[in-house]
């Protein structure tokens, strides 16, 4: 039986007709370039690859990766729980960890006119999409919070002006392996303050550029592949 209209099945989330889309299915991801670093990609494929020593990593609850030196007993069945490592200058991070509420504000610039017949015309001249994240905690392991904190304190405005790609992934649209997404290039992500009470919070504003590429992503993790569509 194929999918019914409006029914999406992915990562344990089902969206049947009449069901509200969970907030977690609207995902904002920041991407930027920096110094070369290690990135980890999940092992994929329909069957387990041949085990090689010192190639595969497991992930701890705190997000750190540990090299697996001995072939795990569950390798043939749980190989997708392991990762490979490579170097990259690309950084990606999901936005909203430990944030309870955040929305994309489209900020339309509208003009209305009512003619003598009483008909109202509304012209939408432009939009200036923006998303605020408050709180946005400085978290251990968060490359983005470290990057923004350093450059904000050093007043390196150019390091967060127009230098991010921001993906908005709508996991409630599309199928598993092909989630709808748009990519905004040349976005700005700027810290608006830093401090708080018990923990360091650094609220940020994401200013979308509207330089949009429509496409799909193949998975909901940092190593997703974005495929543009016409």
């Amino acid at each position, binding site marked *: 039986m194929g999918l019914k209209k409006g029914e999406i099945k992915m*990562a*344990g*989330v089902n969206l049947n007709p009449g069901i509200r889309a*969970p*907030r*977690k*299915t*609207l*995902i904002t991801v920041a991407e930027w370039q920096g110094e070369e670093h290690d990135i980890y990609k*999940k092992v994929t494929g329909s069957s387990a690859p041949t085990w090689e020593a010192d190639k595969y990593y497991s*992930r*701890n*609850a*705190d*997000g750190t990766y540990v090299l697996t030196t001995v072939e795990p007993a569950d390798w043939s069945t749980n190989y997708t729980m392991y990762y490979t490592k490579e170097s990259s200058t690309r950084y990606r991070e*999901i936005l*909203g*960890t*430990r*944030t*309870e*509420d*955040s929305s994309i504000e489209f900020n339309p610039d509208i003009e209305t006119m009512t003619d003598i017949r009483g008909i109202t015309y509304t012209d939408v001249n432009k939009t200036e999409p923006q998303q605020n994240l408050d709180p946005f905690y400085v978290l251990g392991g968060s490359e983005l919070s470290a990057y923004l904190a350093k450059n904000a304190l050093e007043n390196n405005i150019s390091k967060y002006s127009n230098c991010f790609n921001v993906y908005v992934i709508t*996991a409630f649209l599309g199928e598993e392996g092909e989630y709808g997404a748009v990519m905004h290039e040349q976005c700005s992500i700027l810290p608006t303050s830093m401090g708080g009470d018990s923990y360091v919070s650094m609220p940020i504003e994401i200013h979308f550029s509207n330089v949009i590429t429509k496409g799909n992503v193949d*998975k*909901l*993790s*940092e190593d997703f592949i974005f495929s543009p569509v016409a």
Partner: protein
Amino acid sequence: MDKSQAIINFLKTCPTIANNPLFFNFGKVDNNVNQAMIKADDKTLQKPFIDGSVEKLYTFNIDSFKSASYNPVIDNRNDENSEDFKQVQEVMDWINEQGNNRNFPNFGIDCFIDSMETTTEKPELLIVDAQKNPPTAVYRITVKIIYIDNSKRIWD
């Protein structure tokens, strides 16, 4: 991951508890017995985040049973009641030290423990059962663990 079993395994590493019987939820009331008791945590206190993870609470009590003495405190003589209380305080101090060192119970790969601490600075004297022979004092420590449940987090 069975969190209650994780708590028991964790408490068994406490030097003060390891040398004495530890019961879970119900056990024999005797001198130097410790009893770990789970509490129900209100779901309305949970904080869901926009990525699907949820901040949750896990609280439990440790009741320590100590035989009570009727002897008054006299200079230059050890007071049994005071010594027993210090032993219970040692358990509390150990738990807070583990929390400060981020040495937590293992709640499994999907749960990230944010903090663990006792809810008071010193144990509470709950009751003295004078009908037992010898009388038994019950001291209570309440432990609060805040953890992030990532099992429903949509991002891998």
